[in-house]
């Protein structure tokens, strides 16, 4: 095979060398302003359309969404339920305000939020990442927290005009400082390889009080996720040896059927927030 006469071969070899340099030099950098962002914006509407189409065709849409009439009836029933809950809430809020004042507790500062649709997930599942149709133009920047109605989804890792990319808590590089809501035991949450929504607690105290059903929330330690966001529930506690407890967590977010997310338009800082 005469390589010098094979132009595509020469082009391919040169492209491989150039791309290898690019891969190394652009690894984990924030290149929001550049050809990458432009290319991403060109393909975004097409990607969004076909991703939605694929969801519908595969039946991966949110199973709770029915027809408009069904939704209306469901909402009416829920309204009654929430009116009842609101009465209890008013009482609890008043009590909480009194107690907070007593403790000189400042309370949580409220931040603006932005809702966005997920328009893509990483091809070939190299990373547990997702793309949303909101970016710098909506005020989204790196390290902003992403959640949905069920709990913590992840955080933004890259933001360009018109779209952003986020990393889910199920990514292997993800490690979150969490605590058991009931007992306030601290630990690190890490995804279990090869599963789409199971995680495990690491560095848990040997004699920690934890049982299946316990709710796991973010602890606020580590500087990215603020305290108190629900992450998952304990589904299994096993003591393979006396010194180490294995605690399996099921994420409250259904990552296979996630469609919309909410992004907190504020980068959490452990020291100042």
């Amino acid at each position, binding site marked *: 095979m005469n390589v010098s006469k094979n132009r595509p071969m020469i082009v*391919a070899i040169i492209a*491989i060398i150039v791309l290898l340099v690019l891969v190394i030099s652009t690894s984990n950098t924030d290149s929001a302003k550049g050809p990458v962002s432009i290319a991403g914006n060109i393909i975004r509407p097409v990607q969004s359309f076909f991703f939605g189409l694929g969801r519908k065709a595969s039946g991966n849409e949110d199973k709770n969404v029915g027809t408009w009439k069904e939704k209306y009836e469901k909402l009416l029933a829920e309204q009654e339920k929430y009116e009842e809950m609101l009465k209890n809430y008013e009482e609890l809020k008043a009590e909480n305000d009194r107690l907070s004042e007593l403790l000189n507790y400042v309370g949580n500062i409220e931040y603006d939020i932005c809702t966005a649709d997920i328009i893509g997930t990483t091809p070939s599942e190299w990373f547990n990442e997702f793309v949303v149709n909101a970016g710098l133009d909506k005020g989204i920047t790196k390290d902003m927290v992403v959640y949905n109605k069920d709990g913590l989804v992840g955080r933004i890792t890259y933001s360009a005009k018109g779209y952003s990319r986020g990393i889910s808590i199920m990514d292997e590089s993800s490690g979150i400082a969490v605590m058991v809501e009931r007992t306030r035991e601290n630990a690190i949450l890490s995804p279990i390889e090869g599963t789409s929504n199971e995680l495990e607690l690491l560095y848990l105290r040997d004699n920690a009080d934890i049982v299946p059903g316990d709710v796991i929330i973010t602890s606020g330690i580590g500087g990215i996720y603020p305290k108190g966001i629900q992450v998952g529930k304990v589904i299994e506690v096993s003591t393979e040896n006396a010194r180490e407890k294995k605690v399996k967590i099921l994420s409250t977010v259904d990552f296979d059927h996630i469609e919309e997310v909410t992004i907190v338009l504020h980068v959490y800082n452990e020291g100042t927030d």
Partner: protein
Amino acid sequence: MRYLLLEAIAFISMVFTSALSPNFTLLGVQGDILFAVMLAMVYMEKRLTPVLFAALNALIFDALFARAIGFYTLQYLVAGLFFYLMIAKREDSFLVYIITAEVTWILKEVFGVLLCMLTDNPMNLWTRLRVYSLPGLVIHLILFTVFYLIFSRVYRLKAIRPSTMIDERDF
């Protein structure tokens, strides 16, 4: 005309891979349509040109999804080059095509893990092989067969065949 068709096919395959494949999995593995189309076309014309078109469109994956520019494109280029070198001088045989394509899929996966390591992203080779690459042989066997059948007919069209391929081979 040929290049326009190659670009159109590669672009449609890229859109299908990024937008539709995540919603259709077999054994938890997404089918890489762009990859299967690229290999089928390389096999049909015994040239490297479809690899370049596939790689060009894979750049869009890099724009939307990759943590480093070139992460996806390099995988298509290297795997396509390997497949071309393996298949270029061989006699036509469906079995050889399938086996080479499956080996190329594994090579692409291993190369992807190497790129992850190179870009400081944690990825365990054994876990990737066990959870994704090896189960992925099944869905890609189906895709390779389907696109082989499709492109063996598509390449009967003169418009897509390379100009030097004047003899109408029995695709």
